[in-house]
């Protein structure tokens, strides 16, 4: 329909389309497209960021071999996978439950609840990290203080310094950071569900739990898959929190791929190696989202 109304090439508009498109696309091309190829090329070299470009040595797939055989990548990959499993389940479930309680119950102040639940979303990761560092602090953290008060002294520990708890401490924080976004999106989605379906269900004697599983969940499945995909991609790219809270430690217990990339390229100046990590991370994100979308289609 729209297509037939479009003017054919060169019918009166001349250079206008190019004037409109060119500046933005040129900037995008220089900043987002050219570096992709540079990253791929550099990933086969041993460049250190300093030596002249004509002295760069091509070393084949050595960087990739180094990464795959090193302990950093495997440790990081494992943590990213744990991160992904947690972030596609708990924050989405919490968001869904909160949203359906807000929308489908008779509570007042619905806007206030939404407002408060969404609050962490507007904060920068640095501020959130300072909050949670204070909560987990071994000496003056509120978590240890509360455990002592309620008599669970045996659980008191340096949560971020203990190799058994560090990753879970970060995950609890990441859940807190994430669910409010899902809640708000789900609120919008659930409000769009045909209300007469709920009325019909009530007339048929269904309780609210049945309505939730039989009406709400199936009606908003598209929103769910969108949120799942966003969380999944986010989990493989997580960086800020690790950088600000634990620097990957203790040992490699909270190490993640993008922190590995950052350290390799910007702290150790191993540009070639860093680019290879970037390529692997991108392939990983790409494959995971493709597989996910494939699964969604089959459903």
């Amino acid at each position, binding site marked *: 329909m*729209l297509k037939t109304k*479009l*003017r054919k*090439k060169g019918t009166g508009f001349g250079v*206008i*389309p190019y004037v*409109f*498109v060119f*500046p933005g*696309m040129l*900037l*995008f*091309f*220089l*900043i*987002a*497209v*050219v*570096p992709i190829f540079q*990253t791929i090329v550099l990933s086969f070299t041993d460049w250190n960021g300093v030596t002249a470009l004509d002295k760069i040595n091509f070393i084949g797939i050595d960087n990739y071999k180094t990464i795959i055989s090193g302990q950093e990548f495997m440790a990081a990959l494992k943590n990213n996978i744990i991160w992904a499993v947690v972030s596609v389940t708990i924050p989405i479930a919490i968001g869904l439950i909160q949203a359906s*309680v*807000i929308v489908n*119950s*008779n509570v007042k102040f619905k806007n206030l*609840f*939404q*407002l408060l639940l969404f*609050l962490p979303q*507007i*904060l*920068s990761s*640095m*501020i*959130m990290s*300072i*909050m949670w560092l*204070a*909560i987990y*602090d071994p*000496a003056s*953290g*509120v978590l240890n203080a509360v455990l002592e008060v309620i008599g669970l002294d045996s659980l008191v520990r340096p949560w971020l310094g203990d190799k058994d708890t560090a990753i879970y401490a970060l995950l609890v924080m990441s859940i*807190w950071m994430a669910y409010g*976004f899902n809640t*708000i*999106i789900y609120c*919008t989605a659930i409000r769009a569900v045909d209300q007469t379906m709920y009325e019909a269900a009530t007339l048929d004697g269904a309780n609210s739990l049945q309505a939730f599983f039989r009406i709400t969940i199936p009606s908003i499945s598209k929103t769910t898959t969108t949120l799942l995909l966003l969380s999944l*991609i986010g989990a493989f*790219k997580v960086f800020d929190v690790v*950088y600000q809270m634990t620097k990957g430690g203790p040992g490699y217990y909270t190490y993640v791929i*993008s922190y590995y*990339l*950052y350290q390799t390229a*910007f702290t150790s100046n191993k540009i070639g190696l860093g*680019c290879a990590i*970037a*390529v692997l*991370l*991108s392939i990983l994100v*790409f494959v995971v989202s493709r597989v996910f979308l494939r699964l969604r289609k089959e459903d």
Partner: protein
Amino acid sequence: MKKAKTAGAYVFLIISCFFTIFPMLFMLTLSLRTKVDIIKEGVLSIPEKLHFENYIKAWETGHFSTYFSNSIIISVISVVGVLIFATLIAYAMTYYNFRGKGLVNALILIGLIIPFEIVIIPLFYNMKAVGLLGTRAPVYLTHIALNIPFSVFLLKGFIKDIPTALVESARIDGAPELTVLRKIVVPIIKPALVSVIILIFMWTWNDFMLSNIMLGEDNIRTLPLGLSFFKGKFTRDIPLTSAASTIIMTPVLLVYLAFQKYMIKGLSMGAVKG
């Protein structure tokens, strides 16, 4: 029965909200205490005296006014840049046929899926090579470029819904293309533009990784970055870092409270369309 259910909903939501805002409240209490009194009395005690001087010290030692203006400059330039470029591209992609349109479409699609990590390393050295390192430009140029695809995608969805007759009749009346865009298209897609403004502003304002890599000098650092360096300097002084965070958080909270309707709507629109 119904009353009990509503009561249950209240309990659940109040607990949820408490858990959500607790870290903020805890940080607020810490910001009014001293290191010594926290260690001596314990964090759960009620302090005898509130130490507002933490705020003065944080403000005086933190260079936060510099960081604040850097954040404003970078976010405003990024938002304006994205708005102009993305609106022009979205308009052209909807109303014109031109050679290379397929290529532009393909680039936009690539832009929607590539992770930022695949460009950041060479980008840093490119910025260095052209002499932009040491200025704010690498950050806002990158923000603009990387946010164009998403914004074009979002805006195109709205421009497509405008009746073609509206645009055609303006053209027949002899209105130049830029006027058609400004006077007819922009007013209609205003909600989408607002949502782009809010999203891009939030993303650029809160960005950490890109700024951390590109902004080495202290006088061009943004707020999150400045706070990170402040924390590095005063790691063990939790009251002071809490006061600094509260100072930085306050304007953001006020903006959120003032524009929450638009922000929540903008975000949902972005997520649902994008």
